């Protein structure tokens, strides 16, 4: 029987005192933006002020990179981005390509680093520089990126030549891979998004937690120079590793090098929606986990969903902010979640900074499954919390009738497990609530901005067909809960942007975000106050008082006043910027850039990277 206390695992012996000072210049964003979310702390904040609330209306396109990949990072006077397994360097003034590091291209010895690379998009690329550079030697500054062929590549940040000392011991100079190690299951879909912590590159693997017997969600730390694996972390307790897989970190990671901690957010164990095969103690699933950078051991952890039956994986990196509360500056971990709560923990200990309340929730009725009697909640709640029949939406009478038919045929409720008999309307949906990169913290106003959805999923449990290799008694299937025209059945606004005051935990403002422009591939304009039905990612805030954000189907990239939530400027892009933006300063000019390449989940792949600056 699982114990379902809000587990605060404490491995007190772990060396929290070990200091790993980051290389100078990249602990703080400023001119540079060396990592997804700004820096390893991931607050999605920049201290730049050249573009501000007074002049943002004058933003003009500075450059465009066509057929490009991820939102770039900016460091070493260079923009770096990645796509389909290739690392690319661009000029920060013009966006012109400097070089490409393609692992399938012949190297100096005529041989490629790898015969194959992934064809997927790339979430981000990361940068490291040696504190003790050897003059004239290559790879004293490195970039790292992952791909769908399960590799993490390393290339010289100045030349784009692969670092042939990296991964050599495993017989493949230029990259490391989780596939060199036992992952205790099938389906390592791709290498996750890495983070740099001191002289380590730490990365998880991405597997389908919906799957039949997925790999365990290993996180591995590799020596940035040699690629030697220094430690690995498996979120599943040793005694249960033969019973379930996943708990994988598919999202971004963060690190506090000064404290010697790497922070990860894990997913549920396999499979989604049905937990009868994992009724054991799994305190490290759906958890924020602080790992020792030195050993990979758990320093503290907080489980944010017990025995997940809703696919509420931790969707984004634990955000390492310094908030002001009760007149004091506090180093905290902020975790926004799919299920619609902001959790705030003390960074060193994992203890509550704002109270976590274990709330009683309905029991599962599915034979063989045992649900948790309570779930962690906080007062900072967002997303749909309740759905009355009268509130079911329809863009016309026919659509509403279809939505009501679904409603009547199904159960619904926040944290209600899906039964074996009836479909279940789950809200927030498995895309949130909030999702990857949905929040940013502004130390000037002490506001946390969160973009989230108020949509739902329509979920059913099925028994695997006869003869199937699926060992689970049930598996869940879901679809977005939409009308025949493809419009959400939940009442609008479907997406909102809200600001929470981190001094009080109260909302400062809330506004609908984005606009519906099509449904099921056909043009269909929604009202502005309805917000966009589908959205992912979120804002980046600058000291100029602006939140830059795309995250809407209408394809606008916008500048919003952080204090009021009002739009100051916006420009439509060819494809929607569903990525987290970045900003940097080069030759006296501030730029803000974002990948405007749509959303893979909408069938879109490569697109533009666009940058804006103030007109002449």
């Amino acid at each position, binding site marked *: 029987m699982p114990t379902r206390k809000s587990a605060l695992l404490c491995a007190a012996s772990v060396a929290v005192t070990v200091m790993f000072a980051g290389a100078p210049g990249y602990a703080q964003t400023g001119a540079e933006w060396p990592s997804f979310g700004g820096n390893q702390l991931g607050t999605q904040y920049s201290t730049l002020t050249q573009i501000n609330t007074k002049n943002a209306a004058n933003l003009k396109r500075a450059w465009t990179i066509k057929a490009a990949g991820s939102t770039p990072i900016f460091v070493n006077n260079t923009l770096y981005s990645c796509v389909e397994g290739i690392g690319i360097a661009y000029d920060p003034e013009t966006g012109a390509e400097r070089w490409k590091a393609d692992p399938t291209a012949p190297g100096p010895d005529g041989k490629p680093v790898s015969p194959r690379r992934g064809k997927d998009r790339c979430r981000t690329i990361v940068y490291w520089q040696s504190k003790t550079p050897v003059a004239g030697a290559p790879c004293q500054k490195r970039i790292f990126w992952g791909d769908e062929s399960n590799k993490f590549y390393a290339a010289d940040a100045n030349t784009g030549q692969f670092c042939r000392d990296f991964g050599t011991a495993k017989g493949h100079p230029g990259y490391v891979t989780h596939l060199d190690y036992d992952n205790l*299951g099938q389906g390592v879909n791709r290498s996750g998004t890495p983070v740099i912590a001191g002289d380590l590159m730490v990365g998880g693997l991405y597997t389908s937690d919906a799957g039949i017997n997925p790999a365990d969600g290993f996180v591995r730390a590799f020596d940035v120079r040699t690629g030697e694996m220094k430690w690995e972390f498996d979120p599943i307790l040793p005694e249960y590793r033969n019973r379930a897989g996943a708990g994988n970190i598919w999202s971004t990671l963060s690190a506090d090098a000064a404290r010697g901690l790497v922070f990860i957010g894990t997913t549920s164990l396999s499979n989604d929606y049905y937990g009868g095969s994992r009724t054991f103690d799994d305190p490290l699933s759906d958890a924020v986990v602080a790992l020792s950078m030195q050993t990979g051991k758990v320093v503290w952890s907080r489980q944010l969903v017990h025995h997940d039956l809703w696919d509420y994986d931790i969707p984004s990196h634990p955000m390492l902010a310094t908030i002001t509360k009760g007149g004091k500056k506090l180093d905290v971990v902020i975790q926004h979640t799919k299920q619609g709560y902001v959790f705030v923990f003390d960074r060193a200990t994992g203890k509550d900074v704002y109270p976590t309340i274990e709330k009683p929730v309905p029991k599962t009725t599915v034979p063989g499954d045992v649900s948790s009697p309570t779930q962690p909640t906080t007062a900072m709640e967002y997303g749909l919390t309740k759905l009355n029949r009268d509130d079911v939406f329809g863009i016309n009478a026919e659509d509403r009738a279809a939505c009501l038919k679904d409603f009547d045929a199904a159960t619904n409720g926040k944290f209600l497990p899906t039964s074996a008999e009836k479909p279940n309307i789950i809200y927030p949906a*498995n895309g949130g609530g909030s999702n990857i990169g949905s929040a940013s913290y502004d130390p000037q106003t002490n506001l946390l901005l969160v973009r989230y959805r108020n949509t739902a999923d329509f979920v059913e449990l099925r028994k695997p*067909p006869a003869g199937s290799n699926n060992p689970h008694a049930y598996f869940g299937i879901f679809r977005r809960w939409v009308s025949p025209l493809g419009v959400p059945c939940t009442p609008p606004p479907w997406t909102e942007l809200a600001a929470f005051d981190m001094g009080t935990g109260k909302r400062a403002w809330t506004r609908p975000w984005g606009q519906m422009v099509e449904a099921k591939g056909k043009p269909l304009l929604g009202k502005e106050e309805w917000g966009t039905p589908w959205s992912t990612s979120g804002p980046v805030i600058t000291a100029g008082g602006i939140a830059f954000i795309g995250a809407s189907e209408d394809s606008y990239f916008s500048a919003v006043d952080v204090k009021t939530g009002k739009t100051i400027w916006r420009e439509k892009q060819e494809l929607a910027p569903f990525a987290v933006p970045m900003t940097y300063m080069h030759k006296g000019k501030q730029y803000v850039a974002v990948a405007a390449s749509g959303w893979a989940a909408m069938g879109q792949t490569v697109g533009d990277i666009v940058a804006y600056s103030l007109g002449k």
Partner: protein
Amino acid sequence: MSHSRTAASSILATLISAALTACCVAAASAVRAQAPGAASPPTSTDTFDAQVARGQDEYLNACAACHSSDLSGGEIGPPLLGRLFNAKWKDKSAKELYELTRDTMPQGAPNTLTTAAYIDIVALMIKSNEYKVSAPVTEENAGGVVLAP
């Protein structure tokens, strides 16, 4: 996308060996035997609709977690119907769709269903996109089946 065929099988080999050396109770023995009763090869008495119905079961079991139960796409997998899908697949052959699906899907465990199961799922995608096809799709005839409305 035939270029990834060999790479895909070598990855598959790795996955299989990973699965075998690991603990995994039920699944290791069945990496290739995903097919439910559905997987029996289409016979001369088979109909397109019967094939689609089998494809539906296969699809829900192996694909819906990412692409959603109505093929409309989820947080991870793109829609397998509608405007963007059509832009890519219209006027291509069922064989091309079958090969891409077999060689890359389910993502992370490609080529783990039987041929018959993949073909049945292709029939489901054909039906869901309202392409004009009425006879059962087979591995042999797929090259001549055009994905046209």
